[in-house]
């Protein structure tokens, strides 16, 4: 099995990407890697290739602030070449920590979409009081239709089933109230569609304040709202930790108590640690493309490669495609 890695993407690229790739190689003696990056990156951080690794030289990098249309004119960029390797069947999956928008665009343009999926989604792990849950779309599609949201629900459902073994994951829809009539027109329409199908185990709407409780498996929303939710959560969590730290270290006596609660706080921080997750697959594209957090370190990259291997082994795309096809067939039957 061969995994293509875009070593130029991410805040700590190329060094941490290369370190992570080498760790993954050590973990799995049957793994082969195609490392895609700039000449200088290889010269500085990997002058000699280890066994089972090959390199492909890219000339440019897609930066975070570039529009996806620019990808057309950057066919020599690391994310384009790494994804192209999957499209040309040279590699089984691609891993990148670079611009998510560029990675999504490269995946759609080069790998295509699963039949029946109009808009692929970015799935994100959401840390809740009951462990990590899935939220999608995490930011790929700002404007959606109810049909798009139904696709997200079907894709998220298939993915959660695969990673958890839960047969009927609980799917919920984010709204501004639990009642069916709450939400904007698209949310109301989606609620209706979700209620009408028994393909999914739809548990109704949830409000923003209930996301953290984690009484669901898959949370469906549009990419605009999803991205705002993720960013607000990060901000609130960071702010709270800062406030707690300030308060518990404000006086000498409190500092004694702070020492006692420190292990507990560290455990909470661990639950929010993205490096243990590594990466998440784009859902709905026609090949395996793993998106990592922009701040990924070597450990996160190592876990992302491990995840990519596991997705290939489990025929991830076929599993998703089968579910989408079954859902569409059932929908067609019910319309007759």
């Amino acid at each position, binding site marked *: 099995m061969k995994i293509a890695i875009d070593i130029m993407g991410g805040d700590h690229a190329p060094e941490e990407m290369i370190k992570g790739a080498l760790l993954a190689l050590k973990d799995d003696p049957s793994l082969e890697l195609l490392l895609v990056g700039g000449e200088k990156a290889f010269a500085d951080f990997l002058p000699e290739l280890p066994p089972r690794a090959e390199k492909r030289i890219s000339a440019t990098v897609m930066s975070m602030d570039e529009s*996806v249309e620019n990808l057309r004119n950057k066919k020599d960029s690391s994310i384009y070449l790494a994804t192209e390797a999957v499209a040309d069947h040279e590699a089984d999956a691609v891993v990148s920590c670079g611009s998510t928008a560029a990675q999504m*665009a490269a995946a759609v*343009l*080069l790998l*295509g979409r699963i039949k029946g999926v109009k808009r692929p989604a970015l799935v994100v792990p959401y840390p809740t009081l009951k462990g990590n849950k899935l939220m999608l779309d995490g930011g790929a599609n700002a404007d959606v239709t109810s049909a798009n949201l139904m696709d997200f629900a079907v894709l998220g459902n298939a993915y959660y089933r695969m990673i958890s073994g839960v047969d009927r994951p609980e799917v919920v829809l984010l709204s501004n109230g639990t009642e069916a009539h709450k939400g904007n027109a698209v949310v109301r329409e989606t609620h209706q569609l979700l209620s009408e199908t028994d393909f999914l185990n739809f548990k109704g709407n949830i409000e923003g304040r209930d996301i953290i409780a984690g009484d669901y498996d898959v949370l469906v929303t549009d990419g605009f709202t999803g991205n705002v939710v993720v960013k607000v959560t990060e901000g609130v969590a960071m702010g709270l930790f800062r406030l707690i730290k300030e308060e518990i270290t404000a006086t000498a006596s409190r500092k004694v108590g702070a020492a006692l609660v420190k292990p507990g706080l560290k455990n909470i921080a661990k639950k929010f640690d993205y490096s243990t997750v590594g990466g998440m697959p784009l859902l709905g594209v026609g090949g395996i493309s793993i998106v990592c957090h922009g701040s990924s370190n070597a450990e996160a990259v190592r876990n992302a490669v491990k995840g990519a291997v596991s997705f290939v082994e489990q025929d991830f795309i076929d599993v998703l495609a089968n579910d989408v096809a079954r859902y569409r067939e059932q929908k067609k039957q019910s319309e007759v």
Partner: protein
Amino acid sequence: MNDIANEIIGIFKETIQDDDIVIDLDATFKELEIDSLDLLEVVTAIERRYKISISDDALGEIKTAGDAIAYVEKLVNQG
């Protein structure tokens, strides 16, 4: 219809994900409900299939499937 035309129509159908749709060569992309992302998908598939590069300027002039076929035929025939 020649091979290039048939292949390009096939690419459009695959992108729209409708094998039964009849592609009117004179219909605009808007009329065919092909949005900008769909069009980029089609163009990338055409570029990879014929190993050609379609410039942004040329892309701006391509408004219908017929325009796309004519443009690719011209490039391919030029060698």
